[in-house]
């Protein structure tokens, strides 16, 4: 299971990188989102997989009893997802903005500012 999931994560990384390398603005966003997703999965898998048992104490327990999922990667993951969302939303809006201002969907055109209307 872990091996398969690792390969899927690698594929996610691969596709995201493929999109990021393109010149198209829209593909850049797609690539960024996929990259975030891949990173999250990477962290999750690297933290160790525990099938089923979540890191929640049952009503009659005072301390957690094995087996239970490692809560630390999960806490990191939650933070990462939320921050990643902030980044994605910002990226989407800024790319929309760039598209409006530059009238171009090509990243390479951003190297000069000839298209900006003042």
């Amino acid at each position, binding site marked *: 299971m872990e091996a398969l999931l690792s390969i899927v994560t690698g594929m996610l990384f691969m596709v995201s990188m493929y999109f990021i390398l393109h010149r198209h603005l829209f593909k850049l966003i797609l690539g960024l989102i996929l990259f975030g997703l891949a990173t999250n999965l990477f962290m999750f898998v690297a933290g160790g997989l525990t099938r089923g048992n979540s890191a929640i*104490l049952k009503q009659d327990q005072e301390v957690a009893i094995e087996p239970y999922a490692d809560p630390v990667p999960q806490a990191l993951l939650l933070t990462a*997802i939320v921050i990643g969302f902030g980044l994605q939303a910002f990226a989407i809006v800024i790319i929309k903005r760039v598209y409006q201002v530059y009238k171009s969907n090509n990243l390479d055109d951003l190297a000069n500012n000839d298209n900006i209307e003042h």
Partner: protein
Amino acid sequence: MIFIVLAGFITSFLAPLLYRLLGRYVYVPMVLLPLAIFVCLCSFLPEVLAGQYVQQEYVWVSSLNINLQFYLDGLALFFALLISGFGTLVMLYAKGYLDDHPLLGRFYLYLTLFMTAMLGLVMSDNIFSLFVFWELTSISSYLLIGFKHKNETSRTSAWQALLVTGGGGLALMGGLILLGIGNNSYTLSDILVNNGFISHNLYLPALILILLGCFTKSAQFPFHFWLPNAMEAPTPVSAYLHSATMVKAGIYLLARLSPLLGGSEVWQYTLLLVGGVTAVMGALLALQKTDVKAILAYTTISALGLLVTMIGLNSELALEGMLVFLLAHALYKGTLFMVAGAVDHSTGTREVQELYGLGRQMKPVAIAATLAGLSMAGLLPFLGFIGKELLYEAALEDPAKELLAFAVTFIAGSVFACIATLVGYRLFWSKSTNSSPVKHAPGAMLYLPPLLLGTAGLAFGLWPELLATPILHRAAQSITGNTELLLELTLWHGFTLVLGLSLLTLLVGLLLYRFLPRLHQFAPALEAIYTYGPNNLYHKGIAGFLNSSRKFIGWLQNGYLRSYVATIVLTFSGLVLYTTFRNKPELALAEYASLLKNTELYEIIIMILMVAGLIFLMNTRSRLTSIVVMGLVGYSAALFYILFGAPDVAATQLLIETLTVVIFVLLLHKLPAFTYLSHVGHKYKYIFVSVIFGATMTYVLLFTQQHAVGSPLKDYYGQASYLEAHGRNIVNVILVDFRGLDTLGEITVLAIAALGIVGLLRLNPEKGGKR
């Protein structure tokens, strides 16, 4: 002694202020400062002349062995007196030369800064403070050469001088530190007592580095080229820095270290060879030049070469001769530079072919020039004569090196005689029907300092035992390390072989002078050789360096996001693969194969869904479809989180995924439509980079799992979650309790992102919104 240095620094930085207050009379305090220093240094004379030395120490950064230690023995005092005495005259002369220059205050700042640094250099006892002062002289020299900063040649020359001497300075630092390590002390006076350093295995590297520093500073071949170019500086600077003091810093250090480093064959032959080549080359080049300052610059190089040769001979006689010649040279060359400046000031030209018979219009300058010229030619009864006699004696003393040393001395001496006739005689006294027009006679400040210096050359020659012997005696003792050494200077040695050689030198010099016009005609034909000279090599090197760095930056920082990303990714993958390749850790894939049996069907279905989504995503041309597929991939990931015991993460992922899709759809009509922009050929490059990256990440992930490091954190949170924080959902407890501050930071980030988004959305130039 620290007060001398402090007073110098403070006064130098006050100079621009004083200029604002006093106007052109700023020169009064600036002249008084070196004079006061000179007098102050004279108060040390009795002590030093009695054979003692003065030592002072101020703790600075003692943990790094960097202290302000000063040490005043015969050699240091000799140089210090030379620097401050000469400084007084130059300060005066600078006023006459620059007169109403609007940047006079700044000029005095640089000049005083230099003088102070130079004083600090010769008095330093700590090798680090020595280095600091050494570099300060380079920097102030840079500022002074580039004083006419609107002139491009000035700037280039200044830059060149700084690069060459500064580069040498770095080598020197390395050498001094090796010296310190090898002798286990960073105090110069302690190091010098150590006799066995020659056999130390750090000796050779230290020697090479120190010699590099000294040779660049003292313009030895092949680093001589910066000195003629440095003549772009105003003439007071040329007189002071580039003939009398700064270029002698290298000589000073060689002399200072000769008891420690001298005596080996490497030392002797390197110095003899480099000094000899420099002396002969400088002399020959001087004959070809027609600009007075250039001629003087090349003879200076030649003289410096001669000094190095003498240090290389390493006998007591040679070192004495070196000291006397150094003093004589400083006196006459300084005078001649000042004379050249005065002539330039009055006539507006420095070309010897246009200058004849100026003597009648500027008598005091002419007298100064003649006095200096006579000393330079080595005539009785000037100090130059004594110097030359000693040089010959020293050269002939050692039969092994006799020929080389004699030839060098003879060639340089003849050329000196020739140049002396040119500058001291032809410029001023030659009878010509049309003497050059003099626009205005030089003022007192232009002719008094050279006149004084020129007369000093005569006075030192007439009464050497009174004026020069005592201090030179102690200086020679410092260099040789022999306290028994006696140095006696007498003007008249009787009719000896050396006297005959002196006369022969004069004769050859006059002969050369006779053929000088022809040499000058012939000189342009030699230009072709200089294309391969160090100066041109330097310029080519600098141009090539700038060019290649421009290309490199253009290539590295090309402004394309994808090349940055690709570089980062490939570097990362390369490093990971390199480490793997080097350490050869084992990745047991067989273990994973057995684990595969442990896979449920629904998990495989989700994975197939994800992979299919990815493949679809790569082929689709519709933006809406790609957003939907992105959502699908995100939801599949969320399903995994649920399956492996992370319901909170899954919930968040689902929410976020939904929100992202919503935002996307809302803004969809404002986002660019899909078109394929990249070059088709590039696609394969992208695929290559992506595959490498994906494969590396997979590998890292597999590897991390196989070599998992246990963490006590899981147990700690499992224990403490309910008992300490009273929460049953451990992940939530971590976020809001144990790591509450981190969550606060996270919320802040989100708030900032939200603010940015709102700002970007409201900014609406088309509809006349706020820009």
